[in-house]
Each structure stands twice: as structure tokens, then as C-alpha cells.
């Protein structure tokens, strides 16, 4: 897995040498989905609290860029958007994370719709404004920034999962009542980790904004960005860290390459792929690895690790 990630990073770093403008944008989106999926799985995959709020934090990032792009340097905006998302998620968590199951999910979804519509109303009614234009930035810089963000997100997810925070989150996912009775301050852990995961979503919004060239509240707070991380995580497999990474890369690649040419057929086809994955691969695409390893025995032993996972994921 580590080998696969290093290869991937090397690939992205060298990509501007031979990749064109559109492929670079595809790669940026693939990495953005990786950030969203990994940060979503960091919280929801481990605690079992299915959040539909990613679009709220992602949109916060886009709007941070829209409002601050002429006043502050790009890296500062990334940090600010991360902080705003953290605070927003923290407050939202305080209110909603006492809710269980479907109620939390619906509330988090409602937040996305609420923020999007409120901003739309305020913009249109008070400022008479419809959307924002983004200053174009160098696409190689954007690619590298998104890569850096993805690496930071994956590292954060890795270290959190190995820390006592990760243990507490898994115990909440396993049995929240027992966790609370074993001394885990479940409310604090949930609110804190929900807020941490939101940092990366907000930052992703900032980094992707310049390549959108135009955005409005409907685009920035589109609920699509709440569902994509879940789809990617389920596709790749939520059980392990590399599942959401693989799922996001595969989904992003398929979406950006096939959707343009096949349109509705893509969504139809992808729907079928999802059904097949859910029915036959409850552990996602990464679940293929042990299955194939068992089937093929030692033959592929040497070919194992990440490269293989990607290969199968692409088929």
C-alpha cells in the first residue's frame, strides 16, 4: 500500500511534464474526491454516524475563496477555510451529535440545503448578486496543492486511526453505550473528530475553486458533494484506509472521462457497478484483493500490494 501511494505521488508530480490541460483537471478532481472520501470515512466510517454534511464544508471552502481571493494569499485562504469549517462542524456537532442514526443523517443533510439556500437568498435579495468569478491560477500549482492536501488528509487519517482518538471512535462505532460506560467521553470525541474531518473538506473547496472559474451557491453547496464521498468510500471499501482512496480515484476517473462522452449511460452503468459492488463485495473494491489472492494462490504473491488493487479497481 505504501508503495502504491509513493508511485501515485510520483505519477502526480511528474504529470505536468506530459499531461495536457484537461487531464490535469481530471487529476485534480480525482485528488479532491480522495480528500473528501478519506475525510468522510475518517469520521463516518469509524463512528458509524453517516454524515451528509460534506457539501456544507466543501461549499464553505469555495465561498472562502470567492470572498477572500483578492485580499489574501491562496495558502492563507486554505487555512482560514479549514478553520471556519472546523468551527462550523464543531457547532453543528454540539447540536446534532446527540442525535442517533437517521436523525443525525437527515439533520446534516438539512444543513447543506439550509446554508445553500440562505446564501442564495442573501446574495440575490440583498446584494443583487448571482455567483462569483474565480481568478485563474496556475494549474500545476493547483495540482500540487491538491496533492499536498490529499497527502496531509491521508496521513491525518492514518495517525488518527492509530491513536487513542481512533480507538475511541472505533469503540463508538462498535457500541456507543458500552464505550460511554468504559470511560469514553463519547460526545466530546464525536464533536471533535467530526470537526477535524471538516477541515479537509473545507480546504478541498478552496483548492478546487480556481479551476471552477465560476460558482454560485447552488454549485458550491450542491448535495452531490455530500454523496460523492459516500459513493467513493463504499465503492473502494470503508474498512481500511486505502478503500476510500481507491474508490475516489476510480470514481473520479470514470466520472470525468466517461461522463463527458456517455452522459446518462455513464450514470446508468455506474449505478449497476455500485449495485454489484454492494451485493457481492461488501468490503468494496479492496475486498477483491483477498478474494483473488485466495483464488490464485501464490501465483500473484509477488504482484500483490497497491498496484494490483488499482489494476482490479480499474477493470
Amino acid at each position, binding site marked *: 500500500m505504501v508503495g502504491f501511494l509513493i508511485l501515485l505521488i510520483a505519477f502526480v508530480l511528474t504529470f505536468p511534464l506530459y499531461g495536457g490541460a484537461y487531464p490535469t483537471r481530471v487529476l485534480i478532481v480525482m485528488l479532491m474526491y480522495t480528500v473528501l472520501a478519506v475525510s468522510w470515512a475518517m469520521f463516518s466510517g469509524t463512528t458509524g454516524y453517516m454524515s451528509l454534511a460534506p457539501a456544507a464544508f466543501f461549499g464553505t471552502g469555495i465561498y472562502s475563496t470567492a470572498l477572500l481571493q483578492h485580499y489574501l494569499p491562496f495558502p492563507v485562504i486554505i487555512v482560514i477555510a479549514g478553520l471556519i469549517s472546523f468551527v462550523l462542524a464543531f457547532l453543528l456537532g454540539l447540536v446534532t451529535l446527540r442525535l442517533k442514526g437517521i436523525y443525525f443523517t437527515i439533520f446534516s443533510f438539512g444543513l447543506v440545503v439550509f446554508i445553500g439556500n440562505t446564501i442564495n437568498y442573501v446574495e440575490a435579495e440583498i446584494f443583487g448578486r448571482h455567483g462569483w468569478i474565480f481568478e485563474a491560477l496556475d494549474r500545476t500549482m493547483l495540482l500540487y496543492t491538491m496533492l499536498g492536501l490529499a497527502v496531509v488528509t491521508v496521513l491525518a487519517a492514518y495517525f488518527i486511526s492509530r491513536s487513542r482518538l481512533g*480507538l475511541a471512535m472505533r469503540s463508538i462505532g462498535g457500541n456507543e453505550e*458500552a*464505550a460511554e460506560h468504559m470511560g469514553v467521553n*463519547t460526545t466530546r470525541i464525536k464533536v471533535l473528530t467530526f470537526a477535524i474531518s471538516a477541515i479537509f473538506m473545507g480546504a478541498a473547496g478552496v483548492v478546487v475553486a480556481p479551476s471552477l472559474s465560476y460558482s454560485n451557491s447552488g454549485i458550491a453547496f450542491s448535495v452531490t458533494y455530500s454523496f460523492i464521498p459516500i459513493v467513493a468510500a463504499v465503492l473502494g471499501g470503508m474498512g481500511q484506509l486505502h478503500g476510500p482512496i481507491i474508490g475516489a480515484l476510480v470514481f473520479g476517473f470514470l466520472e470525468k472521462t466517461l461522463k463527458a462522452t456517455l452522459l446518462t449511460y455513464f450514470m446508468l452503468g455506474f449505478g449497476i457497478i455500485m449495485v454489484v459492488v454492494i451485493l457481492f463485495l461488501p468490503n468494496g473494491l479492496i475486498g477483491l484483493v483477498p478474494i483473488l489472492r485466495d483464488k490464485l494462490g501464490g501465483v500473484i504473491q509477488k504482484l500483490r500490494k497497491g498496484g494490483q488493487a488499482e489494476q482490479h479497481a480499474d477493470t
Partner: protein
Amino acid sequence: MPILEGQGVTKYFGGLAAVSNVDFHVDRGEILGLIGPNGAGKTTLFNLISAALPASSGEIRFKGQKLNGLKPHQICRMGIARTFQEIKVFPNMPVLQNVLVGAFFGSPKRVSGADAAGEASQALEFVGLSAVSTAPVKDLTLVSQKRVEVARALAAKPELLLLDELMAGLNPAEVSEAMELVTRIRDKGITIIMVEHVMKAIMGISARVMVLHHGEKLADGTCNEIACNRKVIEVYLGEETHAGS
């Protein structure tokens, strides 16, 4: 001074008093058996002590300190750990990690990784589960899962342990093993309250027994006093004394 004391402890569910005006105490180092027919309020009393439920009225004190208004994780950190009647493990986590949760979070101080690991493997050793420490708990038998709960509670270093029907569903050989385990826990200096329907176990190892019936305390005394108590025989034990069965 008793380690745990309750005065007028009452819990209503709607109009129904699940626990009604119960006074009780537990002395340090003893095993208190808690018995009574199904629905008598035994588990509710456990839930009140461990703060899973807020009491409607009355007061519970642990080492002289009032527990009212505290959260379950605070109760645990004060030194009261529990197991559950219906097993509540972390099913997908390995046995050792289940126990690590107790070791890391169950004590009021910040525990280092090495200390927690040591505490956890010691607890597993104590309940006899060292051999399966890397297996996911869901793959274990019922008996072993109950032992994981005990180990997890012990890793939190409690002074008082609440065991809710540890022996339910166990065969006679397993009951004997469980009795031996509970005795060894007591010998470590941990005070125990155990809810149990297996009379042989209760009578075999408890210093005292408290009987609940319809949420009220029916009797309280040594095993012999309880086994001969008219009212207890009528509502629970039946005419022939069940002390031996």
C-alpha cells in the same frame, strides 16, 4: 463507611416504578448478590448506579461522593465499572483492543500507551483469554465474550464492579469457572455487586444478598437469612429451597 450507598433510590418509567424507594449499601471488599424475579428492577438499579439512567429521586453515593447528575464515562473514571446483561462488546475490534478501551479511558489519569497495553494484557491473562487476543470479539463464544466484558471492565481499574447476569446461559462447568473468576476478582480487593438468577452461584460466593420485587427491596441479609426468609421464598425461591440447585 460503605463504598456505595443508596437512599430512597427511585426510578419511574411513565407511571411505573421500576425501582421504588430502595435503600442499600455495599461494604468495601464484599460480594453483594442482587436477586429477584424478572422485572424486579435489578438491571434498572445497575443502570441508575452507572448513570445509564437518571434517578427520578433519591441519592446514590460512592465513597461519600454523590453520583447524581454525572455521566456514565465519569462514573467509570471514578472507579465503578460494569458488564451488561445483553453483551455489549465492540464486535469488529480484536479482543485486545476491546480491553484497551477500558485501559485507556477508564481511569481518571492519562494512561501511556505502554501502561495501557500492559494493563490490557494483564486483564486478558486474568480472565484466561490471552490466547485469542488478536481475534475479533464477534468470532468468540458467548462465554468468552462475557469474559471480554469482564476483562474490559477490569482494565479500567475499578474499585467497584457491577456484574449483570454473568452466568446466564452458561453450563454448570462454566458457571463454576465463572464463580471462581468472580472470587478471584474479589480477592484483588475489588468490591462486587452481581445480579444473578443462578442461585447456586449467588449463595456460593456472596457475602450478602439483596432481594428486589416489583422495584421494592424485599429483604437484605446473609445467604442463610435470605434462603429462610418467608417472603423471599413466596415470591422468588419457591417452597423448596433452591439454595442447592
